[in-house]
């Protein structure tokens, strides 16, 4: 690796990354959809025509209409309002949980990968143990120990995704550790913390960003699953998973009770996933080479 590439590469990478990203129509569409979902979630309290718990039993099980775009549920609540109000909860849980996993898992991974040796061995065995549990089982166990609710859900999903971030960060940190610029810093006596922050972290951020986006999709699904099982968001507060659970008993009578929250989960998870794929295409050096080759061809 030449000296020029050490300084010049990061800048060009970012610039062309954005350009590459913008040139992929699927990614752009996903980003737009995601933006709309996030905006909708933020503005939900103002956008929702009815309250989430505005009960009107006389108006129960109404099909979609002008007054109720997505129809009403078994308690006569407006499903459109509940779906967009639940978006905020779902996204908050997903971001908080993945944020937790990124900080804790990323931290463990960087330390483990950079220092190596016994630290690495111990931390990675712990991560391996966590990996051994099926995702939902581990989350269920955590929720069972604490009271069900939003904070517990965040912790449960966060803990479940921590090992993935630890693995990704460690793998990248291992390769960066032997880079000339890190070794130069080490010989100059730069403290480990500075090296980690200034050299290692920026150079492994690509895989972590990709993993974050992909994990958000799974976090949305996990939250829906936990709420479906009655362990996530507690009634009467709306959640997509919880709404689908209630809809089960009404499948033949009121299809709209299941379809709309189901579609919300589907679209949100898919958008995060496609954005993640798009990011990986431009941030992963191997994928990137393929794309660039395709573009020049």
């Amino acid at each position, binding site marked *: 690796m030449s000296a020029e590439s050490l300084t010049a590469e990061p800048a060009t990478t970012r610039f062309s990354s954005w350009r590459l990203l913008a040139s992929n129509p699927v990614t752009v569409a996903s980003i737009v959809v995601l933006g709309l979902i996030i905006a909708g979630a933020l503005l939900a309290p103002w956008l929702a025509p009815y309250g989430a*718990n*505005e*009960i009107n*039993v*006389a108006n*129960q*099980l109404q099909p979609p209409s002008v007054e109720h775009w997505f129809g009403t549920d*078994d*308690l006569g609540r407006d499903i459109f309002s509940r779906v967009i109000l639940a978006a905020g909860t779902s996204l908050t849980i997903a971001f908080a949980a993945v944020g937790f996993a990124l900080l804790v898992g990323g931290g463990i991974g960087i330390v483990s990968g950079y220092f190596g040796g016994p630290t690495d061995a111990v931390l990675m065995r712990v991560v391996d143990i966590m990996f051994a549990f099926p995702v939902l089982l581990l989350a269920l166990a955590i929720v069972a120990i604490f009271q*069900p609710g939003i904070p517990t859900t965040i912790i449960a999903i966060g803990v479940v995704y921590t090992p993935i971030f630890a693995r990704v960060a460690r793998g990248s940190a291992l390769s960066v550790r032997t880079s000339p610029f890190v070794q130069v810093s080490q010989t100059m006596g730069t403290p480990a913390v500075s090296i980690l922050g200034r050299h290692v972290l920026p150079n492994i951020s690509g895989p972590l960003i990709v993993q974050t986006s992909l994990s958000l999709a799974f976090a949305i699904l996990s939250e829906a699953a936990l709420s479906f099982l*009655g362990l996530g968001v*507690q*009634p*009467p507060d709306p959640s997509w998973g919880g709404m689908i659970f209630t809809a089960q*008993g*009404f*499948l*033949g*009578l009121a299809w709209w009770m299941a379809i709309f929250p189901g579609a919300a989960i589907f679209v949100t998870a898919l958008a995060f996933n496609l954005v993640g794929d798009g990011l990986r295409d431009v941030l992963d050096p191997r994928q990137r080479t393929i794309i660039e080759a395709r573009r020049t061809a």
Partner: protein
Amino acid sequence: MKRTAIAGIAGLAAALLLSGCGASGTPSAQADPNATLVAAIGGEPDKLDPQSTTSYFAFEVLENVFDTLVEPDQNLDMQPALAESWTVSDDQLTWTFTLRQGVKFQDGSDFTSADVVYSYRRIIDEKLANAWRLSAITDISAPDASTVVITVGQPTPNLLSSLGGFKGMAIVSKANVDSKKINTAPVGTGPFSVAEYVSGDHITLDANPSYWGGAPKVAKVEFRFISESATALAALRSGDVQWTDVVPTQQVSTLQSDSSVTLGLAPSNDYWYLALNEARKPWSDVRVRQAIAYAIDRDAIVQAVSYGTAVKNQLAIPKTSKWYTEYAPFSTDLEKAKALMAEAGYTGGKLDLLATKDYPQTVTAAEIIAANLKPLGIEVSIRKPDFSTWLDDEGKGNFDMFMLGWLGNIDPDDFYYAQHHSKGVNNFQKFSNAEVDTLLDAGRVETDPAKRKDLYAQAAKIIADEVSYAYLYNPAVIQVWSPSLQDYTTRSDRAIRFRTAYLTK
């Protein structure tokens, strides 16, 4: 008197059939004596020993396998069964039962008075689930093979409904119990005998041709375990199944207009209610409890949980019962609720509402209650653990409010004593009122039915006024069957009796 999980084969109330019920079809239809009647029930029994199980799924099956000394008729009045007749001494303390002659257990052995003594002693001595029903009994003896004498410590006007209202008091065979096979291959005196038990799938019963009440008109009854209502209804429509009670309330209106099935609806003796923890502040203040009783929208709750099939009731005993008292002190009145709160000096706060996901109606109602109490400044947080956790929390008093139901009560003592007497075993809400205690104690020994009814009416009114329970509604029994199934009726005590039913060819 059973918890909802617990079975409720017992009951009374005239079986007024609300709609589409009863045997329809042409009377000339030919019965098929070789037919197998397939019935879909919602789950598998935990065990088949009628005296120790508490599962309704078990009682659905065992209703057809076992007999009791007396049994409730369609109007839930007690009629002779294994006992042909009985007399009560003048002091009301000695009951003499004369047993039916020539009755045999399904294994061929004779049924005698020794079996009755054994069965009751087993319930009492082993402290089985229903021992409390026999708590008044001081002695049981068998002077000869066809006579049983029961001595009670005090006049016990409800002894017959205690002995016969519920299949948990079934007469079992000592040999069957001793062989330890009663949980999988029970032997009774009833119209059908257990022929095959495939765990996780079905139980098959064979007709008992020598049944004392006359041989059944189908060769076999198969109880299939189907927990999903969609699956059960699809099986019914396709003809795989001829009867099911796995029917959610929201399906009733669709089924009513479906000519390919017969819908059986009967008002039940069950009731659903709310209880506030009176060991905790501010619920110990009767005014706060009344405020909540005024804030609740009962119409909305009944509609949301029952789709019009249940009947609103502010006392426990349903309209169809001869013990019914009309009383409705509360209406939905937010102003009154706020005034009562102000009077009590309570400005609002948090309320921990214990529901259970195993009874989804509690969660549905809880959501409505949460919305109802919000204007009072009461923030309701709903918990919905599984039922075993629920029972645990209830027993420990770990709740501000809970919602549940009682199934299968017959006598007014069943409805009120254990729940509201300050020494009642199920008084988890810690209600205590000296006048109610006196009235309930008096009701237990009063032999004049009119006076007795009055005692319970007085007690019930105080219970409602003081909001020991906030009573909500009496649900309906909902069953559907194929039009080819004849001579079957939905009973208000939820007893599933196939002894006279037949299938047309």
